[in-house]
């Protein structure tokens, strides 16, 4: 071991070792000469005698050098030094090769880093294998991973014996407006059970978690915040605990700060509040019976996943039997999956595909550089022939050319790390841009952990070396067998052209192999890219169903204690619309429970005149509540009948409904020849309501984003379904310029203050 380090040191610091040897020998000779002179020899004779008794100086030195260091390492270093010199002499070739390799290695490093952070890393929670994820499936309606009701959660908690604890969260993130200290700010919020940290096995960074009492109706309004928000907005002040902030116009006390990398249940959440089912978009009477929640739980140590699944089957049957009114949706089953699997379910195929793609890119880069090297080898064949003629063995020649490849690969790897660093910034940036309301549950987990570290660096180094050998070996095998006679016989002027004849044919076949591989890989990538572009153009050509131009929106959040009845809320919305319309430049204005791409509600419907063949078959459609000018403001064309009028939008007016064309086609196959106008449907979310009369049909809107299909949907006046938070949309006249305040997230606060 000691010998190894000494040898390594002597090899790496060769010059110093050489100087020491030189000094030692000279010192010894000088001493000998001195002694000889003292013994009476004349200087010339003394020097001669000294040399004789020392022995052959150069011979001794050479033996010494052999033992001093690692010969192979020494010559490898020499090869590398020589390689760098050669590469410097060909800057164009070198830069081209390094750029090509840098892109290939950089892409692989980037995707590997993401895969490692997302797929390979363990969850940060304690004993992650015991954590499960709960949701419902409905094979009959082809729906997977759907939410369940608060009632079901309570029953599971009461009867289940498989878990140490069951928690739930509101299945979509909320956009929450934070105000009270400084500028109002729109944040991503999550509603979650009070026991969430106990189940996950996570401690708050500061303060405490929710108390059970805070998770019951009427519990104290408290919130936990992310470390990111704590740093950004509160200057990492520990005294933030106990501070009161306003969330969507409700004062909340901050009780705790979550650890930096905490990303549950969604990435990028900044505010956690409890009482998961109290979705502000829904009137409180629906909170127990609408499917809003997804669950998570920790298996007891002696319970397997299969046992828990079996228990859930029993509980599910009991639940369906016990609640024929809202629970008995035929075909519903409980899904119990490992949380880890569930977290990456959406991104796994995408990441693996990307990994494959960048792998191909790297292979193409290797092939490119290999053919560059081959092309250059032709012009260097004379150099290699001369070396071989001087006695360089084949291994020596291969090593020489491999050393050059490795130098190239190392430079490419260094560039790749830089590119990867930049690429990761882009990727994490994209993740942050992800709209807060459009994330499916747990969309991109672990995004904060995506960073370069030692292991990734090791991956890059290994990848670079493998790359270097891959693209370097083939050319070096070829050039290491020069046809001495032919090459050397050619005159110096012609030497650059390389050899001819039989060997020329061989070289072509070798290169064709490279080219064939390259073209094949490129075509695979090209097809993949074309498919992506095709999907993107299709997405762009989808008509969203409404006019986005000149449309300004703002979120409205009403303080629940002040606006505690449907009447008060409806009156407020009407007031907002009236005042907004009065602003110069505004063409029309509307308030709606949700806007396209914000979360929506689905509910059961029945059609009075078209009873379903199977009484168990209750279709669910999207529910939307709007003020009268909604369709006009958003530019949604009316196909049949009429829009809502002011009279419809009063609590006492006869209930009316407007449906979209998808809805109409589904129940009236003869639409549009025979219209559904004047017929009646029931709104499953509102048991108190009588039959609603259809007064109009509008064209379809892609509520779930362009990639999602436009489903059947119905609209009721907002006075009949008045949420706590809603959206204001105003259409600007083309020439008009509105103040910025209407497009700001803080607009909700402004609206509130005008009213108060």
């Amino acid at each position, binding site marked *: 071991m*000691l*010998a190894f380090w*000494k*040898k390594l040191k002597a090899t790496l610091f060769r010059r110093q070792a050489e100087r*020491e*040897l030189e*000094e*030692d*020998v000279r*010192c*010894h000779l*000088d*001493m*000998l000469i*001195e002694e000889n002179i003292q013994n009476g020899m004349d200087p010339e004779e003394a020097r001669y005698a000294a040399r004789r*008794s*020392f*022995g*052959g*100086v150069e*011979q*001794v030195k050479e*033996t*010494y050098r*052999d*033992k*001093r260091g690692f010969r192979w390492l020494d010559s490898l270093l020499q090869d590398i030094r020589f390689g760098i010199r050669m590469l410097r002499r060909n800057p164009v070739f070198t830069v081209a090769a390094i750029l090509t390799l840098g892109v290939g290695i950089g892409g692989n490093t980037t995707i590997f880093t993401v895969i490692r952070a997302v797929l390979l890393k363990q969850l940060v929670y304690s004993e992650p294998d015991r954590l499960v994820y709960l949701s419902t499936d409905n094979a009959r309606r082809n729906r997977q991973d759907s939410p369940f009701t608060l009632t079901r959660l309570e029953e599971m908690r009461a009867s289940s014996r498989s878990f140490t604890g069951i928690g739930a969260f509101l299945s979509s993130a909320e956009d929450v407006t934070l105000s009270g200290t400084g500028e109002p700010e729109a944040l991503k919020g999550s509603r979650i059970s009070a026991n969430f940290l106990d189940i996950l096995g996570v401690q708050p960074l500061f303060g405490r978690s929710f108390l059970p009492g805070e998770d019951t109706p009427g519990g104290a309004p408290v919130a936990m915040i992310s470390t990111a928000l704590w740093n950004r907005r509160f200057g990492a002040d520990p005294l933030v605990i106990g501070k009161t902030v306003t969330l969507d116009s409700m004062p909340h006390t901050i009780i705790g700060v979550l650890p930096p990398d905490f990303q549950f249940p969604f990435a990028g959440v900044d505010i956690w509040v409890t009482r998961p089912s109290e979705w502000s978009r829904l009137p409180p009477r629906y909170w127990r019976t609408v499917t809003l929640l997804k669950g998570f739980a920790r298996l007891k140590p002696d319970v397997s996943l299969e046992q828990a699944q079996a228990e859930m089957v029993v509980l599910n049957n009991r639940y369906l039997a016990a609640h024929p009114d809202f629970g008995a949706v035929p075909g519903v089953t409980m899904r119990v999956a490992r949380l880890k699997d569930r977290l990456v379910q959406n991104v796994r195929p995408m990441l693996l595909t990307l990994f494959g793609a960048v792998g191909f890119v790297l292979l193409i880069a290797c092939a490119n550089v290999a053919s560059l090297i081959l092309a250059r080898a032709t012009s260097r064949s004379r150099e290699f022939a001369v070396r071989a003629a001087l006695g360089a063995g084949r291994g020596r020649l291969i090593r020489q050319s491999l050393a050059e490849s490795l130098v190239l690969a190392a430079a490419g790897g260094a560039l790749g790390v830089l590119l990867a660093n930049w690429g990761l910034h882009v990727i994490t940036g994209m993740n942050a841009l992800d709209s807060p309301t459009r994330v499916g549950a747990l969309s991109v987990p672990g995004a904060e952990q995506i960073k370069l570290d030692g292991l990734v660096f090791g991956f890059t180094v290994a990848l670079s070396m493998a790359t270097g050998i891959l693209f370097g070996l083939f050319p070096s095998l070829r050039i290491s067998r020069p046809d001495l006679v032919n090459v050397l016989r050619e005159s110096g002027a012609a030497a650059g052209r390389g050899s001819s004849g039989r060997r020329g044919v061989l070289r072509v076949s070798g290169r064709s192999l490279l080219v064939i591989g390259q073209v094949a890989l490129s075509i695979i990538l090209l097809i993949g890219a074309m498919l992506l572009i095709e999907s993107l153009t299709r997405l762009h050509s989808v008509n969203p169903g409404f006019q986005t131009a000149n449309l300004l929106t703002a979120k409205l959040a009403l303080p629940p204690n002040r606006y505690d009845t449907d009447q008060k809320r409806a009156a407020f919305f009407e007031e907002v619309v009236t005042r907004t319309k009065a602003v110069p430049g505004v063409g029309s204005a509307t308030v709606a429970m949700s806007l396209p791409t914000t979360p929506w509600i689905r509910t059961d419907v029945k059609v009075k005149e078209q009873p379903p063949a199977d009484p168990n078959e209750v279709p669910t459609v999207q529910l939307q509540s709007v003020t009268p000018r909604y369709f006009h403001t958003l530019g949604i064309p009316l196909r049949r009948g009429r829009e809502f009028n002011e009279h419809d939008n009063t609590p006492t007016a006869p209930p009316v409904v407007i449906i979209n064309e998808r809805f109409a086609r589904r129940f009236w196959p003869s639409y549009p020849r025979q219209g559904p106008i004047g017929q009646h449907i029931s709104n499953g979310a509102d048991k108190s309501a009588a039959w609603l009369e259809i007064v109009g049909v509008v064209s379809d809107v892609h509520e779930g984003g362009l990639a999602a299909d436009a489903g059947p949907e119905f609209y009721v006046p907002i006075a009949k379904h008045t949420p706590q938070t809603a959206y204001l949309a105003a259409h600007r006249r083309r020439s008009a310029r509105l103040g910025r305040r209407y497009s700001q997230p803080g607009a909700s606060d402004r609206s509130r203050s005008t009213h108060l």
Partner: protein
Amino acid sequence: MSKGQSKAEILQGTLDLMVLKTLQTMGPQHGFGLAKRMEQISTGILDLNQGTLYPALLRLEQRGWIKSRYGASENNRKAKFYEITKAGVKQIQSEQQNWEQTVGLMERFLRLAE
């Protein structure tokens, strides 16, 4: 290089022990002093090319049996002084045993042959 190795190896073994033992009895020495001392002890029997000491010293140092540092010679010349280490002393003991065994064995055989 590879051809002469086996012969050099035998020589080296004895040379190593001689160097170590000399350093042990004399204390720190520079190369020249060491060579002179060894010639004195061997009283001319050993015809040592003094240069061959240096590869041997390098080997011993790599093994950790001796260590070196720069110092001033009697004539105030800067020279490398070699010194035996604890590991070197231990090595002498085991080498000495080996050597004595070999010598004893050889003696018995030679007496038998008489």
